[in-house]
């Protein structure tokens, strides 16, 4: 067995063999916000910006964001583009297939509120939040890659304040039942 005196300076520097003390909430939140895997799908021109954000110039990878091609393995859904009524059913199903905890980023004017189709677009859903709950809205038409990265940072901020002891969704639901 190694005694305290036998640990070298090098080992102390790297923390090898040491112990870190943290809150479980912080540990879970840190793990979640450091590996946000989005579902790899796009709907319209916003998807081009999403792809560009994932490319080497903007490098979403540095935030631990890696697109996954299955909703079962994904944590985030980026609604990147115009959601038609035909697509809305599919978007909803994809969202339902994702495992908890799951988050949604609504990217661009179309997904936020219908965008340029708000008045005459009979076929366009006027905001994806009519079908699934949205965590972060990114404005723009389409938003630049920096804006999408900003959206991810906002989502990270949100996740950082979560707590498994007080799940907000459940509390809301309990309140509804009481009334």
């Amino acid at each position, binding site marked *: 067995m190694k005694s305290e005196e036998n640990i070298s300076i090098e080992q102390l520097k790297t923390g090898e063999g040491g112990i870190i003390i943290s809150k479980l909430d912080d540990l879970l939140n840190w793990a979640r916000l450091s590996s946000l895997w989005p579902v790899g799908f796009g709907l319209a021109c916003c998807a081009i910006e999403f792809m560009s954000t994932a490319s080497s110039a903007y490098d979403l990878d540095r935030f631990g964001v890696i697109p996954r091609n299955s909703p079962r393995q994904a944590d985030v859904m980026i609604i990147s583009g115009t959601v038609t009524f*035909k697509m*809305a059913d599919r978007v909803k199903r994809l969202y339902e297939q994702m495992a908890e905890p799951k988050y949604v980023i609504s990217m661009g004017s179309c997904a936020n509120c*219908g965008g340029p189709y708000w008045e005459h677009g009979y076929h366009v859903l*006027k905001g994806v939040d009519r079908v699934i709950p949205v965590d972060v809205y990114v404005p723009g038409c389409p938003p630049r890659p920096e804006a999408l990265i900003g959206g991810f940072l906002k989502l990270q901020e949100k996740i950082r304040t979560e707590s498994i002891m007080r799940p907000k969704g459940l509390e809301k639901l309990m309140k509804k039942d009481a009334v």
Partner: protein
Amino acid sequence: MQFEDVKSLVELEEPNAILGEDLNATPKALIIHKDFIYRVCELLHINEKTYFDSLSCLTGLDNGEEKGTLEVIYNLYSIPHDLHLTLRVELDRSNPEIDSVSEIWRTADWHEREAYDLLGIKFSGHPDLRRILLPDDWEGFPLRKDYVEQEMYHEVKVKY
């Protein structure tokens, strides 16, 4: 071969098919009676002198309630002869039905489905006349002048 030659060729084979012409259209247009559209298209497709082997576009059009007609517009092109031609057919707005030309040009298949989807023009003899863009359970035909979108779709409000 010029527009006049194409016209006289059709007149020779089907004397009752041509209702008029529109020389201001680009390319110049023949207005065809709806009962003859399949026959005229077949003729123009088969004839060696015209050989319209490509249907560049098929469009539907609503002339409004006042006029009471829907239109189908065929843009033909002959690749070997470098010939352009437009065919126009007027249909009754209350019962818009016309023969499908999808057997002559496969292109017409999806184009006719689009005209059916957005204007409600029925193409008899079409192998698979379903909506092509909108969901199957959509109500109404959006490109009609008097179209009013439905209130709800799958329990979601349609309006802003």
